[in-house]
């Protein structure tokens, strides 16, 4: 037996809703109309929130923040496959999914306004706070999933990360551990084609990111990330496998960041406008709206009405967030370092008390991107 093939692998691609919002009947899942409408509502909310945050940032009322424009479908579609007791471990562009799960708009605002208050989530939401260190959250998701396995509960955890995150050692160690322990975790890579200025093609030589799952002995699939139905179906299959004890799955959602990396970034330095236009035509919300209209579930008037309603929600959330920000006591930063503050730290708090500075003023950050 000199030279023989010992292993073979394939990677699949899934799309259900085409760019005109026409669904592939054979693959179309049956979701209740209420859900379809709620998905729409949350995608629109995420987009309006994005617009508002852009304005707030320009007015100096909010810090640097990452735009979600064009990526509203992917994480939300995947989260549709979860139960309320499953964990969501987001990256920083999962607004639509987090709002769908029930995270108050106020939390998102406070986080980007530079307040820890933004990470105060009610525990039953089963959402981990937004991470900053790229790739790091993937391992935490493995721990959450392993805990479910140890408790012999059938919860799963679903973690989101970008194409750039797949280059970090943390991602590798997370996938390898998940494979070894067959932990019920779903790795969702939101491949928006860029890591700041670095295009997907220079992030990794692999033809797809989904195939990275092969390195860990589980399966990966590529889906149209601007197609809620494809994301949902792929996630549902992965979640079912995980609940059955068949371990992790890697889902690569192909999408595109239509906006800048953050409010401080200028994409013209590293990509062509033409490329952006190609993807604008694939806008997930337009596509979803067409899908709803085709089923007689939605009209243009309803859309106008919805946007008014959501704008009001956002206004209200901004008021709440800014009120909380105005109230914020800088000194209490000493109170949450340890469950019980050690004596020397209390002494430092007293020292700090003499110099408390309410940070009303917003200096424009030196940071550019």
């Amino acid at each position: 037996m000199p030279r023989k093939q010992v292993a073979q692998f394939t990677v699949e691609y899934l799309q259900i809703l085409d760019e005109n919002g026409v669904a592939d009947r054979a693959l179309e899942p049956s979701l209740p109309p209420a859900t379809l409408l709620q998905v729409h509502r949350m995608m629109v909310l995420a987009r309006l929130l994005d617009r508002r945050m852009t304005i707030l940032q320009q007015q100096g009322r909010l810090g640097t923040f990452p735009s979600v424009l064009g990526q509203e479908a992917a994480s939300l579609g995947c989260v549709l496959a979860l139960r309320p007791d499953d964990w969501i471990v987001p990256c920083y562009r999962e607004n639509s999914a987090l709002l769908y799960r029930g995270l108050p708009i106020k939390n998102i605002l406070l986080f980007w306004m530079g307040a820890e208050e933004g990470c105060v989530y009610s525990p039953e939401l089963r959402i981990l706070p937004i991470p900053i260190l790229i790739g790091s959250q993937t391992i935490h998701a493995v721990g959450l999933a392993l805990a479910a396995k140890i408790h012999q509960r059938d919860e799963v955890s679903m973690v989101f990360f970008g194409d750039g995150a797949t280059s970090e050692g943390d991602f590798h160690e997370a996938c390898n551990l998940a494979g070894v322990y067959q932990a019920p975790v779903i790795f969702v890579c939101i491949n928006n084609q860029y890591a700041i200025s670095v295009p997907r093609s220079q992030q990794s030589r692999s033809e797809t990111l989904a195939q990275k799952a092969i390195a860990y002995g589980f399966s990966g699939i590529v889906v149209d990330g601007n197609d809620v139905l494809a994301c949902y179906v792929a996630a549902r299959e992965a979640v079912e496998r995980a609940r059955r004890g068949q371990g992790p799955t890697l889902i690569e959602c192909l999408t595109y960041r239509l906006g800048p990396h953050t409010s401080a970034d200028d994409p013209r330095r590293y990509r062509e406008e033409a490329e952006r236009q190609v993807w604008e035509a694939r806008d997930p919300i337009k596509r979803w709206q067409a899908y709803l209209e085709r089923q007689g579930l939605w009209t243009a008037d309803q859309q106008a009405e919805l946007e008014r309603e959501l704008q009001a929600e956002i206004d209200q959330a901004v008021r709440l967030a800014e009120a909380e920000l105005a109230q914020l006591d800088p000194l209490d930063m000493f109170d949450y370092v340890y469950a019980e503050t050690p004596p020397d730290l209390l002494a430092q708090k007293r020292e700090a008390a003499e110099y408390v500075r309410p940070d009303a003023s917003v200096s424009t950050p030196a940071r550019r991107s």
Partner: protein
Amino acid sequence: MALRNLVQALNLALRQEMEKDDRIVLLGEDIGRQGGVFRVTEGLLDRFGPMRVLDTPVSEAGIVGTSIGLALAGLRPVAEIQFSGFMFNALHQLGLLAARFRSRSRGTFQVPMVVRSPWGGGVRALELHNESEEAVYAQLPGLKVVIPSRPRRARALLVASIRDPDPVVFLEPKRVYRSIREEVPDEEEIFPIGEAEIVRSGRHLTLITYGSMLQDCLQAAEQAERLHQISVEVIDLLTVVPMDTATIVRSVQKTGRCVVVHEAPRSCGIGAEIIARINEQCLFHLQAPVARVTGYDIPYPFFAREQSYLPNVARILDAIRRTLES
């Protein structure tokens, strides 16, 4: 009470805590079948099974990051990093993430976990198997750092660490693992994190240390008394972060002289911090500069040279005498 060495005392703490609290899960490289390369987890896989004692791949960031997730889910992970030098492979997870879940969420998310690790040198181990990185954690707020020196306190401190609601780095002086035996009661014993212990009282000089250096310090103190009639008070810090400043200051106010001893490199070490606090709180009680007997500011050498790197009784004794003469 039974005589136990450090390895046995730590094993006792783990076993008893795991029996009392089934949220406790151990994970690390070779901690299962192998019982750990130093045998601290010996027998625990058989006793508690593979769902509570997990052998992991060679993956330090994975071990620490997974522990964070387990803790967030309500478990009580006790991770082992095979040698504390390998903590640097996981320092982003430990020092930037585990340490900050509480503060960044105003207490909403908590990470009660322990990361145990064989620490320090002196056993003719390979390169990078001899690190003393404790001072690094002092610059990463949100962590607590415990370094026992003897079996009985070690057991009581490990119990406290496991029950602590915050991440604790628990560093085990490998040189002491089998070199000292002490009475360690079978009954539960707990010693509070953050309290130093005066293990020898004296009048002329305060000798401050922790971990494996305690033995050398006690010998030096005894010789100082016997050969030079110098009465040395020895403080064993036990917890290096947060530090028990009050005990240090009280002693130095009494003796007016101080020597600090540790294996770690000198610059920005725990010794520097002790001196800074003495300077801030009882400078004018000092009748001599505080002396530092420490590892040098060079990489820990391969073992053929380690005895020339490590502090020892002779170096400590000379420092004591010089401090008294000046």
